[in-house]
């Protein structure tokens, strides 16, 4: 099975490199599949479903969406890794799937096993608390816990936040205990029920912040959130760590460059439509676009950053 696949792949590559311009011209000649590494209903899902519509129009072929949640996007990533390198099968999800997961989990893929088409927007991870608690900033949370001589509890979602707050705990000389929850929704729910000192999420907290059910007290990123320019970031607090998760689209390694570029252009155009922009805004995401020339480098840089963060813990 394996040699045959390899030969087939080699033949495909050869054919692709010989027929590059023609292939890009004919591309796409059949429907394109975007496989989302996360469940329906989240920010990734909402945006990519909205983008699929203008993309179908500009590419002249249907763009179909499937959800394959699991292993932090890894299930979908593996599917892309094993697909034909022709640009018809696309991963849609967080960049952490490539930049972080392989560092903490024995994944069967690495960050450079793909052609990263583009990063189409940036999740803005915010920290929030229940409004009945007096905290206005992360510093308040730490001071309160120190004064009361108790541990801080927060709604954790995955490995990255544990590493970040383990760093903060060490630096501040305090105990920070992660309470496991599932996804941004789980973290928001746990904080709404006032069971923890704080929680974090991407855009999920948005409506609750607006209704006053949650209070935003920090950015979990190195920089401040675009939407909350006065709220301090991790770096502002003196913590040299932070999350950063792009909404990334990637395809199989070996996909001809013109095809990748054509897809990137279609994504860029789709992201610019008012319907998509409205979702980006409502989910508190940052409107950025990093094309195929830089997308891979960005992932590599993020990966190195996280690798250092993990190494510093030990």
């Amino acid at each position, binding site marked *: 099975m394996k040699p045959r696949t390899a030969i087939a792949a080699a033949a495909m590559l050869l054919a692709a490199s010989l027929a590059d311009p023609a292939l890009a011209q004919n591309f796409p000649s059949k429907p394109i599949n975007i496989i989302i590494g996360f*469940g329906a209903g989240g920010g990734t899902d909402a945006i990519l479903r909205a983008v699929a519509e203008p993309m179908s129009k500009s590419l002249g072929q249907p763009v179909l969406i499937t959800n394959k949640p*699991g292993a932090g996007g890894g*299930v979908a990533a*593996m599917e892309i890794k094993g697909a034909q390198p022709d640009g018809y099968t696309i991963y849609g999800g967080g960049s952490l799937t490539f930049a972080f997961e392989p560092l903490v*989990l024995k994944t069967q893929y690495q960050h450079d096993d793909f052609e990263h088409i583009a990063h189409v927007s940036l999740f803005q991870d915010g920290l929030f608390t229940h409004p009945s608690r007096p905290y206005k900033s992360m510093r308040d949370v730490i001071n309160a816990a120190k004064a009361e001589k108790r541990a801080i*509890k927060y709604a954790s979602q995955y490995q990255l936040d*544990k590493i970040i707050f383990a760093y903060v705990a060490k630096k501040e000389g305090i105990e920070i205990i992660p309470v496991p929850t599932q996804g941004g929704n789980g973290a928001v729910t*746990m904080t709404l*029920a006032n069971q923890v000192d704080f929680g974090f999420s991407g855009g999920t907290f948005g409506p609750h912040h607006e209704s006053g059910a949650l209070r935003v007290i920090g950015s979990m990123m190195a920089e401040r959130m675009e939407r909350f320019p006065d709220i301090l970031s991790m770096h502002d607090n003196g913590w040299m760590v932070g999350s950063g998760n792009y909404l990334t689209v990637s395809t199989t390694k070996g996909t001809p460059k013109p095809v990748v570029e054509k897809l990137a252009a279609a994504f860029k155009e789709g992201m610019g439509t008012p319907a998509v922009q409205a979702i980006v805004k409502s989910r508190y995401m940052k409107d950025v676009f990093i094309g195929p020339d830089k997308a891979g480098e960005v992932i590599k840089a993020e990966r190195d950053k996280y690798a250092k963060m993990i190494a510093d813990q030990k």
Partner: protein
Amino acid sequence: MAQQIAQAWTNVMSLEVIGYITLGLFIGYIVGVLPGLSRATAIALLIPITYKLPALAGISFLIGVSKGGNTGSALTAILINVPGEPQSVVTALDGYPLTQQGRAQKALKLALAASVLGDFLSTIALIALAQPLAAVAVGMGPVELTAVLIFAITFIAAVSGASFYKGLIAGFMGLLLAAPRLDMETGQPRLTFGFNDIYDGVPLLAVAIGTLALSEMLVQIDKGWRGSYEHKSLQLKSSTPENRRLTPREFFTCLPAILRGTLVGIGIGSIPGMGASISSFLAYAWTKRRDKDPESFGKGRLEGVAAAEAADNASVPAGLIPMFAIGLPSSASAALLMGAFMLHGLTPGPFLFRDDAVLVYAIFVGMVVASFIMLAMGMIGQNLFARLIAVSEVILVPVIVFLCVIGAYLEGSGMFSVYLMLVFAFFGYFMKKFDFSFVTFLIGFILGPMAELSLRQAMIITDGKITSLANHPVALLFLALAALSIWRLSTFRRMRARMGDEQA
């Protein structure tokens, strides 16, 4: 909220959704008629088909199968005295005597009317009750949720299956099977034995199709080898035209029985683990007791059929109340429906109303629409569906085995899921042979990750101190109820054992 309901209405009124509801009811009807193929089995087999569908179409389709299956099962009960589903035993009590008297079509029409009415009223009850209950449930923290789950699993173990201990063992086997996955705190693989395919848990469909569908086929093959397939001749002829019709007068005489059945179906059906068998049994008993001539029951009374069928069908939508309100499946088919929700990235429970209100309302609207489609389908097709009774196992078994393999393969892990399904088929076969409860097993398996998460959250939040339970009176109440259900529920168990079946 009115706006959301309007939006839900528009979403349902598309050719795709209505089409899938109709198809679901149609398949469900067939499944109900075919003996040896239960509703839960059919749902397990059909979940893979819904993969590529939008959540609304897929879930409405599966609910359609569930509803159709219950209605269809009355046919075999009435015509050949073989219940297509366990709960139709009660329908056969008076239904089959009616057939023997040459009044088969009258009985079938009444059964249909009672089914549809029971189903419709119960759907309305679901719509009215689920959201207020969910609103209460939203306030529950992890400590309370853990207590509710402990109660649910012990209670279901106590009421389903012949033995409480076997029920509890089955429930724990389900929980154990839910353990292999990435640990939710450390993020590291746990009990995965190097298989990356189970990082997010053992695939649901491999387990469900294996233990429910393929194992049932093994039982059938087993039966075939022993040469004990039974074939009964079909008596679809009614002696006179008036025995073929259901007069409005007859319908109105039966109306109290239908309403009683519906009430019992809603009440009992919404309690986890009780389900359709007990409710149709109780509704029948109630109607009989209130009648002037209880002796004539069992000899062909229309009221008997009406009460049983109304209760049976009312318990299906009612069974979804705990699922929508607190995320607790009440039967094997509800557990599978919950699995289907999860495959679509949705978690049934109180937060579904908050996060995806339009979808929930659309599912409700779809269920109401399904009631009407069911009525039309029954009126047009009852006689045709009845002919399916003659389908031989020799044809049926290979087709279903084929569907089992395809279904498991479609889940996404390829042949891994298929091999896993084969293992679980033998597991399910021996569970059947040794009378372990499937319902408890499946519910344990599906609730496992949720129970683990909330238990571990509760442990961290209370700092692992048992004394802090004193601050959680609601949790204490449910823990006390769990203890009570272990201690007291032997009566239900005996009643179950008398009826000699397990509700699916």
